[in-house]
């Protein structure tokens, strides 16, 4: 797309109109994305409480985060733990669910609806509902476990089980959601003739999966992995509603740390430094995934 600025008057007019049409996005991008990123970068080097003026303190906030803040590293570690499990297990199970629903089953649309419903449930309702299901004494989950002779844990109220509980809730709500539908779209994009000819050549179901399905949907897997990592690293609402970071900081994820620093302690400068650290982590993780993807993602038209 090489276009000179000095095109014909008609081309200039078309360009001008084009800019006008996309101008809402351009303004929105500058005001709500690029501007805030630059502002948070600046604020991250300042001490700033609401109402006062930002005081330049150089790298102080970053030193505070890395060396003195006792909640920083644990919150990051917890987030990473949560993220690794939900992304790998979640993407894998979503793919399995999509493959199941891609079969020629009767009542497929009913199953599809059943799987999709949890992801439509508002996060607060979801958290409340699960807090009740996982209630240690009268919750349904422990009752069912009791039926098969297992003494269920305290779930959200136990330090050890709190994160696994959050993982469970988040998997329930996300396996059959948008990610599964994107996989479904990918699976339906695989030409049926390829399976047919492979079968004629004597390939069994497992071979067909590894040699046809997997390579052809690998771009979709990458897409879901990248968005999955971003989504899981941003875990906030679920933990905020279900446990509020507890018990005893067991579910104090990175975003809760940022939220409390910004909106409870009003440490806007420090919170900005945390936001920037988060931004860099997400950037590196996405970059690494894209770089490493050269080795396993197959592009039809590459």
């Amino acid at each position, binding site marked *: 797309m090489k276009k000179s600025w000095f095109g014909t008057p008609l081309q200039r007019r078309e360009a001008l109109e084009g800019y006008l049409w996309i101008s809402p996005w351009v303004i929105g991008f500058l005001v709500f994305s690029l501007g805030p990123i630059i502002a948070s970068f600046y604020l991250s080097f300042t001490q700033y409480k609401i109402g006062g003026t930002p005081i330049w303190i150089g790298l102080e906030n970053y030193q505070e985060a890395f060396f003195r803040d006792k909640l920083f590293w644990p919150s990051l570690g917890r987030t990473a733990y949560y993220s690794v499990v939900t992304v790998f297990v979640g993407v894998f199970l979503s793919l399995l669910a999509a493959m199941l629903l891609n079969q020629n089953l009767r009542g497929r649309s009913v199953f599809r609806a059943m799987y999709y419903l949890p992801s439509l449930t508002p996060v607060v309702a979801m958290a409340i509902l699960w807090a009740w299901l996982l209630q240690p004494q009268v919750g349904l989950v422990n009752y069912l476990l009791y039926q098969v002779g297992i003494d269920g844990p305290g779930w959200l109220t136990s330090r050890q089980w709190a994160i696994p509980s959050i993982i469970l809730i988040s998997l329930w709500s996300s396996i059959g959601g948008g990610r599964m539908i994107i996989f479904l779209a*990918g699976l339906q994009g695989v030409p049926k003739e390829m399976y047919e000819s492979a079968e004629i050549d004597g390939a069994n179901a497992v071979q067909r999966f590894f040699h046809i399905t997997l390579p052809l949907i690998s771009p979709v897997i990458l897409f879901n992995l990248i968005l999955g990592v971003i989504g899981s690293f941003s875990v906030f609402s679920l933990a905020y509603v279900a446990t509020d970071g507890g018990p005893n900081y067991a579910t104090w994820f990175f975003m809760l740390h940022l939220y409390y620093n910004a909106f409870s302690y009003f440490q806007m400068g420090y919170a900005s430094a945390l936001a920037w650290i988060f931004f860099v982590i997400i950037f590196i993780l996405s970059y690494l995934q894209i770089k490493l993807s050269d080795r396993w993602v197959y592009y039809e038209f590459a």
Partner: protein
Amino acid sequence: MTTTEQRAPAYAAESVASRRAGRNTWTGRLMTLTLYAIAIVTGIAFSLPFFWTISSSLKPITEIYLFPPTLWPQEIRWENYRDVFTIAPFARFIWNTVVVTGLAMLGQILSAAAVAYGFSRFRFPGRDTLFFVVLSTMMLPWQVTIVPTFLLFRYLGWINTFLPLIVPSFFGGGAFYIFLLRQFFMTIPRDLDEAAKLDGASSVRIFWNIVLPLSKAALATVAIFSFIQHWNEFIGPLIFLNSTEKFTLSIGLRYFVSNPFESDEPREAILMAASLIVALPPLALFFMAQKYFVQGIVTTGLKG
């Protein structure tokens, strides 16, 4: 799924299945049976929490703390649903949510459509780069920008108003929606608007009278996603609203949980009823418009 889409693969799958069946009927049947068993068991696992919530929402307080729990209330108590409205200003929360969701949706649809139209119909320097920037903003978690955004709204005096929840929707409407609509607009033949242009129609007219009416299906998809997104939104209201009469359902519900009201009686049943009321509109919308959900993504070819 549209019927045409379903027919082709079903035919192909059938021919493969019948050949496979001809070769080995017994394992073929066992396979199918296993698939159904897995689908049903997992389907139940996904819906059981809803069943349990409905059941709990209808129980009297004496029954809700029974162990072992009763799967279905012995005595149904509909009053729990009435109490939702008497114990908290719930009707107010619903109205607030409707206003915010409606206006934000409107802004999102209009501005995403306008921007998508700009990207799909006009040639201008830097277009592809800018579109790439649109797509990369999908990777930016908005929590990263929350501190300066909050400061901006505070500076504008918008805290504890609905403006922070509505106004940003009018500026582009989100990368995903722009992408979805642009993909759709590209499938509309350009001959149509070329002809209108020769007749002297302005680009606004072409957009409003040709492109939008032809894109009803795509716009409906965006509307549905947008509705659910705003109805369920939590962080925005949590940060920008602080007085009870401004609360939307998502934080009104939380308020309902964490603030014990005058009575010390457990209110779990009422809470379950309230959560169901909050969850109901998105679920109902899903059932009414199910085909758009899958189709919207399938037809735009969102597969990398």
